[in-house]
């Protein structure tokens, strides 16, 4: 059992010992503390003691309390010693130590900084190595990233039990070092470095940030863990990787970086990307993960400045997320923001400036193509007249409407931060200002953020932390569905604007001029958000810690929408007439106040019994959410912005409204971590959640999980193994929930304001509800392998998972006799399965002195399938085509349900010969050039019953490859991302208005159309009517994208010294550099969340509209914001 510890590996063993992570931190804290108390080298300090028959440990802690000495030891050495009695009156510490250790098997050594190291031995002070010719080595340790001095780096002499730690300026001094010794520099988060002394008296050392993940600390919810101690599937992304990308929300930068995490971002400013961790796990309760920002639970992280983030930890499997119980079914992303480090004040500035442009545009038909196509189409309807007067071509207009509404937009991001600290206080203060304008005109976004994160060490036992962040975001929105939609439909024959007057598309073809639409609608949302957390951490005893964390999230949102008055007359338009007008100005104002608080109280016990290590966490959390909306409306408000208050409008036109929401949640959490000799690890979690959203008799849910891991590489039989530096097997099982359902959905609530004539307002209970409604429950099994080979240069992770959502929410259609007014009942009737495999590989190495590089690749395969749905949930309504998606049993959620195109009828004979088995001509009204659709049910007619399921937006594979190279002062990094197997419904193409025969179409549609001389089988003849929903509109959605490319240069430190600059790096970066896809629309990556969802910001009630969630209509590309390519120049500056 007892492993012999060779003195030479004492330090290393210490770092990797069975002492838990906390112990290690304790040491680090002690080291810091020592550095500050030691005034001048070896002390002659005196102590008084009077202890009878107490444990050695007690004696040591008493000395620590009464003096500036600190002990450093492996717990197992001290715990096995006999009881000690000692009396000392103002005695020299040295002599006291001698008395104490005389009868023990412990050697001790007093180092610089009053640090006393204990190790197994004979009970004597280790003699100074008097015989050797020793030298004094001094030096400075700095970080390769930013060049800042590093505090608390452990500096030891290899093979000897001596060492020290660096001070606030990164300086260290070691006495009695042999010229032949090797110094070992180690610090958490950095590569350990060994440097031979080789007679040098001064050693300046630069430490590289560690690419070895095993020792990185991972935030796991209500605590942290070393990666090597994890039993679940957790992916981590460092803040530096996020901050280098010119994107607004941190999740966007996560794209392609973590296996099994699909990020669907939008080009629109201030958009919160859709995130799917291990597939889509819900239809009606939201499929986005839970975010935990410094302990505060939230759904929206657009207020967080990327530059403030240290790490993002993505908890993927149920055993990891179970600690978040009923919120965790879609995975959890934990965001930790920066804190100050003890040491010299550091000031840094990071800035980028750049431009954004549409990454890809759809080429619309020009004037001649347009005119020719429509007139050709009109011939098919037996007309001899031209639908479009060809003399209009003489006007010479050939408007590209996307040109008219799009622009190159400015992006600018400035961040400044001040951080530092002492032994009592660490501080981090940052301010950021972001301008992120959209590529659609008038679509501007500005955000100011301020953060103050402070840590206060009140005593050696009590620590307080405050994290406060404020953000102010101002978004000028445009109605994309009308602007982009009309730009797609409007004729190129009409100019957008000439001499201040608009082209009148509306008189020509009943489509509004999108430029005018943008100019005459004002829509500004101002969001002020304060997010704060205060933590009190008290070490009751060495092994027991109490932690109380109070978080608040206040969101104040105000939206102003003003519609300018204008008429369809000659002062506005080149030609008057048409229906594009706003005869009366309107002002609508909405104010949403949302606030939530969350209070966690936990107790953590860490105990070791021999080789058995236990860590137990128990706690409670309570959470409350309040929401309040106020809405006001009036007409006739003057156009001057200074008059935009409701009182200036006509009071006869006033409307107001309001609504509110409130819910609370109370939870109990428990987690036990156990390991035996670091080989066998078990984590068991249980969370009990009570939610006010559910009826009292079903409101409590219990979410258990267990996970086990086996560190094979720690086994004795692996000692001689040369292949694996590290090998771990993991297995986990867990249950989690998703209670993201509208508050009180289980209650039968009255609808009020049901006016009846002038008799008054009635109320009614209009709906049948499911009184036993409950959360969705996800059960997940995960099997994983983590390994590291080739001297830790190659690390890999493989995970297999099987995730089944039971009791998934679905709307069932009741029999009419129930009299349910909305004709749907929300109930837990469906199941959703996601299963798949994830692989991640990471290679990092150095070549010579100047080169270092890394490559990581990840890929995930997922299979998604819904079941238990009797009819299928239809969504994705396209005017004129009906619902084009269906979520039925046995198919992926939001599968396209459309007619299958078999080809194009080439001749009348083709049409006549296309019969069903009874000889009935299936498409008797077709003409050559029309699509031939499959008559699936064989009834001899093409009807809605012939629709079939042809895939969904959900990719079968997602992958990312990232890499980076450092050469001397140059750095280059590249990030890529791709998906495969997903399909897209090109709804823009499908949205033709039958009543309006003059709509424009894509240039390709015109060029490739079927004609008697171009007998294609893929594109139909010219047509001015809407085609039915078919596979023609379903396109391949696979794509591969070079997401980010950054090239940087760090100026040599020496050249900056005079300017007192510690770091200066300049770089250029391109975001979304190139996309490779077959999809013909604007972008294969988009979220089909209804446009202008931002107006509903903070509104939990909006979640009741299924289309707002973008789940059951995913992949229907109707009003997609074109994705943007961003070019930036950036600067990192440190003082």
């Amino acid at each position, binding site marked *: 059992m007892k492993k012999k510890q060779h003195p030479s590996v004492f330090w290393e063993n210490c770092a990797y010992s069975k002492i838990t992570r906390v112990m290690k931190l304790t040491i680090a804290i002690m080291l810091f503390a020592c550095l500050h108390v030691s005034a001048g080298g070896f002390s002659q300090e005196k102590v008084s003691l009077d202890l009878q028959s107490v444990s050695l440990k007690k004696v040591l802690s008493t000395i620590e309390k009464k003096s500036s000495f600190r002990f450093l030891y492996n717990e197992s050495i001290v715990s096995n010693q006999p009881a000690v009695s000692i009396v000392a009156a103002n005695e020299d510490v040295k002599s006291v130590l001698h008395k104490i250790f005389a009868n023990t098997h412990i050697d001790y050594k007093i180092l610089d900084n009053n640090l006393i190291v204990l190790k197994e031995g004979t009970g004597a002070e280790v003699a100074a190595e008097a015989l050797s010719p020793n030298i004094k080595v001094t030096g400075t340790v700095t970080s390769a990233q930013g060049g800042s001095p590093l505090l608390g780096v452990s500096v030891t002499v290899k093979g000897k039990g001596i060492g020290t730690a660096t001070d606030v300026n990164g300086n260290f001094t070691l006495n009695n070092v042999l010229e032949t010794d090797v110094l070992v520099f180690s610090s958490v988060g950095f590569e350990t470095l060994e440097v031979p002394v080789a007679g040098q008296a001064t050693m300046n050392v630069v430490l590289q940030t560690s690419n070895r993940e095993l020792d990185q600390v991972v935030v796991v919810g209500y605590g942290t863990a070393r990666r090597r101690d994890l039993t679940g599937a957790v992916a981590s992304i460092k803040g530096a990787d996020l901050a280098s990308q010119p994107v607004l929300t941190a999740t966007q930068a996560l794209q392609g970086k973590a296996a099994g995490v699909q990020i669907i971002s939008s080009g629109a400013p201030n958009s919160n990307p859709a995130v799917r961790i291990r597939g889509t796990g819900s239809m009606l309760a939201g499929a986005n993960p839970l975010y935990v920002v410094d302990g505060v639970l939230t759904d929206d992280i657009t207020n967080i400045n990327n530059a403030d983030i240290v790490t993002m930890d993505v908890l993927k499997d149920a055993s990891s997320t179970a600690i978040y119980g009923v919120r965790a079914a879609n995975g959890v992303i934990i965001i930790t923001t920066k804190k100050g480090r003890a040491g010299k004040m550091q000031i840094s500035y990071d800035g980028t400036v750049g431009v954004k442009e549409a990454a890809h545009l759809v080429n619309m038909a020009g004037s001649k193509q347009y005119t020719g196509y429509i007139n050709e189409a009109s011939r098919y309807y037996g007309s001899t007249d031209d639908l479009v007067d060809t003399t209009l071509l003489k006007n010479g207009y050939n408007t590209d409407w996307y040109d008219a509404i799009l622009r190159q937009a400015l992006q600018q991001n400035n961040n400044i931060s001040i951080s530092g600290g002492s032994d009592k206080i660490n501080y981090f203060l940052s301010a950021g200002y972001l301008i992120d304008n959209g590529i659609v005109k008038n679509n501007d976004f500005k955000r100011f953020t301020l953060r103050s994160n402070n840590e206060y060490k009140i005593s050696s036992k009590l620590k307080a932390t405050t994290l406060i962040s404020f953000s102010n975001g101002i978004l000028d929105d445009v109605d994309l569905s009308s602007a982009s939609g009309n730009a797609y439909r409007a004729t190129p024959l009409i100019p957008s604007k000439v001499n201040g007057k608009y082209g009148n598309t509306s008189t020509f073809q009943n489509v509004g001029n999108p430029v005018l639409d943008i100019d005459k609608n004002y829509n500004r949302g101002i969001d002020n958000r304060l997010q704060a957390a205060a933590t009190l951490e008290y070490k009751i005893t060495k092994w027991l810690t109490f932690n109380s964390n109070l978080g608040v999230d206040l969101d104040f949102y105000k939206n102003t929408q003003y519609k300018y008055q204008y008429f369809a007359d000659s002062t506005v338009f080149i030609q008057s007439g048409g229906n594009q007008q706003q005869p009366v100005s309107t002002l609508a104002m909405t104010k949403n106040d949302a606030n939530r608080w969350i209070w966690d109280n936990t107790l953590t016990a860490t105990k070791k019994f021999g080789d058995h290590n236990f860590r137990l966490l128990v706690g409670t959390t309570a959470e409350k959410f309040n929401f309040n909306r106020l809405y006001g409306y009036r007409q006739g408000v003057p156009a001057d912005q200074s008059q935009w208050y409701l009182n200036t409008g006509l009071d006869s036109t006033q409307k107001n409204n309001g609504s509110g929401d409130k819910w*609370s949640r109370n939870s109990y959490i428990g987690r036990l971590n156990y390991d035996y000799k670091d080989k066998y690890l078990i984590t068991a979690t249980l969370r009990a959640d009570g939610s006010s959203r559910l009826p*009292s008799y079903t409101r409590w849910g219990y979410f258990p999980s267990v996970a086990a891991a086996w560190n094979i590489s720690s086994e004795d039989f692996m000692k001689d193994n040369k292949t694996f530096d590290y090998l771990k097997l993991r297995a986990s099982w867990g249950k989690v929930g998703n209670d993201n359902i509208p508050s009180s959905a289980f209650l039968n609530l009255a609808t009020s304001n049901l006016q009846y004539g002038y008799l008054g307002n009635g109320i009614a209970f209009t709906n049948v509800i499911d009184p036993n409604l409950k959360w969705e429950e996800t059960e997940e099994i995960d099997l994983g392998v983590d390994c590291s080979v080739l001297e830790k240069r190659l690390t890999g992770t493989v995970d297999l998972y099987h995730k089944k959502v039971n009791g998934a929410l679905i709307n069932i259609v009741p*029999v009419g006799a129930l009299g349910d007014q909305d004709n749907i009942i929300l109930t837990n009737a469906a199941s959703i399965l996601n299963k798949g495999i994830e692989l991640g590989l990471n290679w990092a190495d150095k070549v010579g002195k100047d080169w270092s590089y890394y490559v990581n690749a990840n890929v995930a395969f997922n299979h998604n399938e819904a079941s238990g749905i009797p009819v299928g949930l239809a969504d994705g309504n396209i005017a004129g085509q009906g619902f084009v998606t269906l979520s039925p049993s046995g198919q992926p959620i939001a599968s396209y349900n459309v007619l299958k195109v078999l080809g194009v009828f080439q001749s009348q004979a083709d049409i006549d010969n296309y019969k069903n088995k009874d000889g009935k001509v299936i498409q008797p009204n077709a003409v050559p050039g029309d699509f031939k659709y499959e008559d699936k049910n064989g009834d001899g007619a093409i009807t809605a019953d012939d629709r079939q399921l042809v895939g969904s937006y959900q990719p079968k594979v997602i992958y990312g490859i990232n890499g980076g190279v450092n050469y001397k002062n140059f750095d280059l990094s590249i990030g890529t991302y791709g998906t495969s197997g997903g399909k897209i419904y090109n709804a823009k193409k499908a949205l033709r208005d039958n009543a309006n025969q003059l709509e424009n179409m894509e240039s390709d549609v015109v060029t490739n159309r079927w004609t008697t001389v171009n007998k294609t089988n893929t594109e139909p003849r010219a047509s001015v009517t809407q085609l039915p929903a078919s596979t023609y509109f379903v396109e391949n959605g696979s794509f591969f994208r070079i997401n980010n490319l950054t090239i940087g240069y760090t100026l040599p430190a020496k050249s900056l010294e005079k300017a007192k600059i510690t770091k200066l790096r300049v770089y250029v970066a391109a975001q979304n550099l190139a996309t490779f896809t077959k999809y013909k629309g604007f972008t294969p990556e988009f979220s089909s969340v209804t446009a202008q969802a931002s107006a509903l910001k903070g509104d939990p009630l909006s979640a009741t509209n299924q289309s707002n969630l973008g789940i059951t209509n995913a992949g229907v590309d109707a009003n997609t914001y074109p994705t943007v390519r961003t070019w930036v120049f950036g600067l990192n500056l440190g003082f």
Partner: protein
Amino acid sequence: MKTKNIFLILIITVASIACIIAGCSKNFLDVPAQGQQTKDEVSKDPNAASNLVLGAYNALYFGGFGNTTVGLELCLTVDVASDDADKGSSPSDQQATAGKMDNFTVDANVSYLNDLWNGHYTAIARVNQALSVLNDATFDPGLKNRLIGETRFLRGYFYFNLVRLFGGVPLILRVPTIADQTNPAFVTRTSSDSVYAAIIADFQFAVDNLPLRGGPGATEGRVNKGTAEAYLAKVYLYQKNYQKAYDLTTDIMTSGKFSLVPYPYYAQVFREHSVLANGVPVGGNNNSESMFEVQAAKNNACDAISKLYSNGQGPRATKGWINVFGNYTYNGDLGFGLNTPSADLANAYEANDTRKAGTIIFVQPTGGANAGTFLWDGFRIPTQDSVQNPRYNYKAYHSPVAETVACNGPDDKDDKPKDIRLMRFADVLLINAEAAVQIGNTGAAQIALDSIRHRAGLASVPATINNIWKERRVELAMECDRFFDVIRQGRGVQVFGPLGFTANKNEVFPIPQNQIDLSGGKLKQNPGYN
């Protein structure tokens, strides 16, 4: 040691505060629904009972092209099916729905049927919800019984429509729960006799508990004793219980609360405002012959109306129209042009019958630029070259400017606040006449029939059954009565045969296929439809 104790105390304090605020407090998780009342809260509200009754009345607005009680789709079902009206509008418009009603090719998939089914059951559910609160409520028994009476009247009314449309239907007399989704009572049909028995019970309760029109506790616009008696009499007429029908109608006639709008003001019956006749206001909403009428109002939410009722039946343009009213220029037509009076109906009127012009808008075949048909408010319907159909329903017309303007202004055609006349005193008189003939009281029958004909400007005719039935047609034309009336008289093949009527099938409409599917096939289809 001391500091340690202080911290321990601190922890305990913090923990116990946490406990009090969150963990241990039972109330922490009892958060009431915000902004919406639960049944418990409604029960505590002193106005709740009365409000729930209004909420049930509100179901009379169900219409548009969606769930319907007495709105547009009911007209497009029963009037279009009858010989009174054609589908109207452009040939393709509503061809698969109203078009199939018109020529009796209706099948179980015609969407109106499901809309009518759902609309009526949704209304019935509101009634049952209101009754469950009312029955438990403790307040003045007189008021309580009046409110229950009104509510039960509405339930009886909705079932009366259902049983006439579909025959026997599931009879739901309580608040449903989600478990009833598979309850046989909700997915199997109750015989039409049992449904009628429930209707009679509901109407009888209303007759016994409602005040007389204008009497203590009565409010104009809410149903009164006369309303309930009129419908009960109508049910008895359908049941051929002529004595009861006669007694009930006689009771209404002798109550003195109802009278016919005098000659020559028939058209005024269907207008919003009354006019002065010899200094006395006549006609308008809730006029002297109003027995039951959907109360409409203008409000900000545009929801105190039956959507599209007026617009759906409004004259439809084929080319642009312009009407100038004072300083307002009305640009466009009046609606979809559905449910147009048939030529057969137009021919059914005798010469000099004032009701003809009050019922039908006749479009002029030719004229000139400013010619056409001028409606009572001056609105000009151009001549036939700009108009889709030759005739339109005048009773559904609501003036865009001379009556209450729709909530979004005169251009807002969908939201016209039109009171739909569901039963008039004229019907009561004609029931009385028919019942009197059947029980041999021809004297009484003649008096009742004469009063109808004289008001129309016509001379007396003998009070025979056939004359009374003929009178019913022209008096109540385009008021959703004709189809049911002819079926009741047992003359389906005789009257509707030329239109495609099939005996033993078309007396009722098919049960919506949707509902049969949702019931898992337990709901059985009417004979002749499959």
